[in-house]
């Protein structure tokens, strides 16, 4: 039986690959006028035209935030300052360990739910999302930090073992640090890349195309506005790479955000071309901008939007299914950690974009319905979760995407 299944799946995968080979020949991806360079490296007059330092800084701030959320000596206002790079009154603060970040005027919070496509005319929703994320920080301190030396139990916040690691949860098994960091993968990285910098409203804004065609550079820089917008999208995925022109060499070891989970998805044999597909699309799209070939650019945008959205969907399902296994083995700490990551990835689904419709794969309300189901099987949240709920929610998510539950689960 096992071998027959393997046989069937191998054949069907083979068919998929054959058909995708054929399809490729009919599409203009092989447009001879634009070729992707080997590295993400572009020059004009002998100097680089690539710049995404603002994105690198925000990711570095995110890494500091991630560590601080488990520093029990930090107060809620201190954590909030790391999130916003400002105090409650908007005054400048120096909350980071890295002086470069203290000197920066950028912040994570100002770019949360801040894309042109989704939020330029929906600031009410943007404010709601920021408030959701703020609440994770407040509750991490008030509910989790305060119970540092208690043993967690149903209805009791405290610590719980996950293998030989320790997890710190609230009375419902929630790790708010995971809620926040995983939500930022959507609310910051994915939203900025898909719904802002790769949006035609941003790339082609005003005279961008004319200026790009005529190589009119932004004042004081070596790049056109369109080139720069594209690089900024790139920076939210690869901005912390050891070598930004060759980011796959250090994939997964750079930040706690989208980069890390591209590596995780890519290590699943069902999705093992994701990293190279996305990197190639970024390179080819950038080269297309230099060549003024906007159809080629837009095809790459479609690839990037679909694959990055899939990463969010795949990891949502993966963690729900991992939690199911952990519950079956009575490993509650492991299950809660998986579920806390799942919570953030599911929250991130509202920032995806289906390239065929231009809309997120899930709306804010749909996401909140799923999250509500995830925490309401009983009075004690994750402690009461049933396997059937995890399967229901996994299926709800997987059916919207092109991957299957089983492909995501392993």
């Amino acid at each position, binding site marked *: 039986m096992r*071998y*027959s299944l*393997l*046989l069937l799946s*191998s054949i069907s995968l083979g068919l998929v690959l054959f058909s995708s080979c054929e399809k490729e020949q009919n599409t203009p991806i092989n447009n001879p006028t634009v070729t992707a360079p080997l590295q993400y490296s572009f020059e004009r007059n002998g100097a680089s035209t690539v710049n995404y330092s603002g994105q690198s800084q925000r990711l570095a701030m995110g890494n500091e935030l991630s560590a601080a959320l488990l520093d029990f000596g930090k107060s809620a206002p201190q954590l909030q300052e790391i999130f916003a790079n400002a105090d409650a009154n908007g005054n400048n603060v120096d909350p980071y360990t890295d002086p470069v970040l203290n000197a920066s005027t950028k912040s994570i919070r100002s770019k949360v739910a801040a894309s042109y496509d989704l939020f330029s005319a929906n600031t009410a929703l943007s404010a709601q999302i920021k408030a959701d994320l703020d609440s994770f920080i407040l509750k991490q301190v008030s509910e989790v930090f305060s119970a*540092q*030396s208690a043993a967690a139990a149903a209805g009791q916040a405290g*610590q719980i073992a996950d293998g030989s690691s320790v997890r710190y949860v609230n009375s419902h098994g929630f790790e708010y640090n995971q809620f926040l960091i995983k939500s930022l993968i959507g609310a910051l990285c994915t939203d900025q890349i898909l719904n802002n910098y790769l949006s035609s409203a941003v790339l082609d804004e005003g005279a961008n195309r004319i200026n790009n065609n005529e190589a009119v550079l932004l004042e004081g820089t070596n790049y056109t506005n369109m080139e720069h917008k594209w690089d900024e999208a790139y920076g939210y995925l690869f901005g912390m790479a050891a070598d930004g022109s060759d980011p796959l060499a250090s994939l997964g070891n750079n930040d706690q955000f989208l980069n890390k989970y591209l590596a995780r998805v890519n290590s699943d044999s069902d999705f093992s071309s994701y990293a190279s597909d996305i990197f190639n699309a970024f390179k080819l799209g950038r080269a297309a901008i230099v060549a003024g070939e906007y159809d080629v650019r837009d095809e790459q945008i479609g690839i990037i939007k679909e694959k990055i959205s899939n990463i969010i969907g795949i990891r949502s399902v993966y963690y729900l299914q991992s939690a199911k296994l952990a519950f079956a083995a009575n490993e509650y700490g492991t299950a809660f950690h998986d579920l806390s990551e799942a919570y953030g990835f599911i929250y991130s689904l509202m920032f995806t974009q289906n390239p065929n419709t231009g809309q997120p794969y899930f709306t804010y309300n749909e996401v909140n319905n799923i999250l509500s189901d995830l925490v309401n099987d009983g009075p004690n949240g994750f402690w009461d979760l049933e396997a059937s709920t995890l399967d229901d929610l996994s299926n709800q998510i997987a059916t919207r995407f092109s991957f299957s539950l089983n492909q995501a689960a392993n």
Partner: protein
Amino acid sequence: MERVVLALLITVTFACTNEESDDSQNADNFDRSAMLVHWADDYIMPAYQDYQQKVVALNSSAQAFANAPSTVLHSTLHTDFVAAYKAWQWVSFLEIGPAEANTLRNFTNIYPTSAIEINQALPNASYNLSLPSTFNEQGFPALDYLLSGLGDPANTVSLFTSNSDYGAYLLALSQRLADMATQVVNDWQSSFRAEFIANTGSSATASTNKLINDFVFHLEKELRAGKVGIPAGVFSGNTLPQNVEAYYSDTLSRALFLESLLAHSAFYKGTGFKGLQSGSSLEQYLDYLNIEYQGEALSTKINARLETARLQATTLDDSFARVVQNSNSDLLSLYDELQKTVVLLKVDMMQALNVRVDYIDADGD
């Protein structure tokens, strides 16, 4: 792209071949129940009883030392510590039933221990050793630090003499080890043995399936990774000599590795606890099913690998930390040998026995 398709076609071919070769194997009517009885009576219970005896002796000599610290009593204490630590290697992988319920291994042998956290805990006298955050402040690694990490025996004696916090902490650790061991032995005797041998069958929660998973998991994560791979730097950019087992005793890490390897072999071959009584085993199970690997019996192949690893380890310095520093490639070769063993067990053996792997690699965050 073509290459990928080719690889898939090859996979399909292999899958067909495998399906055919299934016919030459015996149907699985192996008596799992007899194997469970052998495991329980000839390995698990005698090994736990031996371990309990050794940690109770350790606790006694810790009391004697804490009451009147001296280099003579320190030496006795360290001898008992080594004996108990070796006995632990025989039961470490048995994370099923009472040991699983109490996550015995987490509370017994998480290393490296945290000298910083131990020193913070010492003066408090209010340490709660049941919290997961104290895994790295207790068990054998913490005892190793208290006995050998504070200086030479004379220095250690004078520290224990001048500050009673050390003795109090030492006793809290040794008492806890003794209590946990007693609990596990009592649970096996009073109820879990019956439950264990009655849980025959081949579901994911059957005793055979669970213990095979525990055994292979331990060989992969503890023997291969914890004792060898992690200090050798396999999972990090740089070597980590301070992460060897029993780091402070210095010359104990190889002995503990060999003891653990011996325990794995005995369990696999069915020779019982320290050769006590042989019985039905995984090796016999594979032979019963007539499982071959590259023209040879898989069971023979696994035996050969385990023996090669043992021979390789015996040529190493008795301090793995020194091996890391002086000739890390030797430790890496040992790792590679163990990795090949893991593949034979985790892929070939578990597939042949139709036991599904119930653990996945941790996320790392």
